[in-house]
């Protein structure tokens, strides 16, 4: 009986938290900026810190994942004498699955955690209160540009990840393992479709972007403003985002590629 009660209480709290986070998201995105020029400036600043500064980790990880995929794929495909198909394997697995998921995971660790910590520290040093006292809405000023920047950056980073992965894979399979260059590219060209493969990957990335950035800014805004509280909130951002990405990926994949 007690277990049922505590389960109910837990569910209730969880629903309340989700509801609050939802209201928070709607409020921060729907409040229109007062001054357009300034909003653009704020957004550009965030695009830089969230997106451009994540480029290196995305490029390097993408290249390595492409290289590993080629090695693994080649060793199996070679048994069937179809090592040219490594191009197809590489492109499809990256575009459909690995790019959005791995990019989102890296993004949660690199950009999400720093967003949470930054906003949490702003709260701890009373900067958010200070905006309020000046009659400036902190949701509009602090949260909205960060959220929008995250949603713009992640899909782009995911595409960059794919490109970097394919080039890394080409380097290994063509340059090192000796797969014929023309066959590598043509098998890719034949099998990759723009709307089913590339677009589905982008849609996934957009969904992950919304979820990861939402979790990051909300955790920062709601954290207990002490050093311990900020630390916990940052950890929660990474853990919750990672779980959400993986679970959501299953749902999206089932919806997109599930009907055989």
């Amino acid at each position, binding site marked *: 009986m007690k277990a049922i009660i505590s389960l109910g209480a837990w569910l209730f709290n969880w629903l309340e938290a989700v509801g609050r986070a939802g209201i928070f998201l709607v409020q921060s995105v729907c409040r229109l900026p007062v001054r357009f020029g300034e909003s653009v400036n704020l957004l550009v600043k965030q695009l830089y810190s969230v997106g451009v500064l994540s480029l290196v980790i995305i490029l390097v990880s993408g290249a390595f994942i492409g290289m590993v995929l080629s090695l693994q794929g080649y060793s199996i495909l070679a048994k069937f004498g179809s090592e040219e198909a490594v191009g197809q394997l590489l492109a499809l697995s990256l575009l459909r699955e690995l790019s959005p998921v791995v990019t989102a995971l890296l993004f949660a660790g690199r950009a999400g955690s720093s967003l949470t910590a930054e906003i949490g520290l702003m709260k701890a040093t009373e900067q958010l*209160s200070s905006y309020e006292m000046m009659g400036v809405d902190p949701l509009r000023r602090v949260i909205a540009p960060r959220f929008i920047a995250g949603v713009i950056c992640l899909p782009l980073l995911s595409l960059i990840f794919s490109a970097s992965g394919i080039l890394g894979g080409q380097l290994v399979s063509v340059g090192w393992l000796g797969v014929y260059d023309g066959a590598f590219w043509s098998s890719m060209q034949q099998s990759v479709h723009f709307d089913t493969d590339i677009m589905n990957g982008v849609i996934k990335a957009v969904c992950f972007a919304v979820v990861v950035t939402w979790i990051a800014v909300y955790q920062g805004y709601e954290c207990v*403003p002490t050093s311990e509280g900020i630390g916990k909130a940052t950890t929660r951002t990474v853990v919750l985002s990672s779980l959400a990405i993986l679970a959501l990926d299953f749902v999206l994949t089932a919806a997109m590629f599930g009907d055989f």
Partner: protein
Amino acid sequence: MVDAYIRVNDLSFFRGDRAIYENVSLTIPKGKITAVMGPSGTGKTTLLRLIAAQLVPNAGTIFVDGKNVHALSRSELYKVRKKMGMLFQSGALFTDMSVAENVAFPMEEHTKLSAKEIAAIVSDKLHSVGLRGAAKMMPAELSGGMARRVALARAIALDPELVMYDEPFTGQDPISKGVLVKLIRQLNDSANITSVLVSHDVKESLSIADHVCILAGGRVIAEGSAEEIRASADPQVRQFLNGEPDGPVPFHYPEDNDVDDIGDNDGPISVASKSNKDGAVQ
């Protein structure tokens, strides 16, 4: 008695089950410096947040300039807040902006002044706190005292009618304290501002306050001019003013924890909607 700028009527505020205030009433006269004093944790900062309507009381009303701040709509409230300046304990300067940008920020947000006019006002305000030379520095490069003076320049950027100071003297060296005392007095007199000062620094506060309220245990235990407070015979007031370790406020913390005079800096205050349980707005 002069007009009251802020009138607090029968205010009660609870944090969880703990009463921070119970039926507190006080008035803050217009154009004067009012010092609200009391031991750490009597909810002095909470009072400022209640006045600014960042927190909502459980009972009672607060009128600022004739308006019940807790009954205002969001946009009306933001309008009232433009007439308030607040100096936070930590300064709360925006760390991603330079000193000059910090001071310019409220004007950029709320006025249609040109960049040139804003720059002139910024330089004027920074001059009045003696920091025009620091305009290009970043908040991280400032000493604690300088940061508080910049925050003061920012708080008065829109020429507010009310400036609230949250523990302005805490953690300041004697020279900075002296500078702040002088600045607060000067600003109050030259611009006819109403000032509310929350502090437990007895010497500095009594030296500039026109009107003093002493809070303890969720109640106002004394109210009057600085002279009246100094002459008070109330043992609790005497203990606070003279800093005696034992007296009506016991040295030993009660073991059943049944006190209501702890903690106003102990948790997530204001901004976030999370504290809605405590009655915060937003």
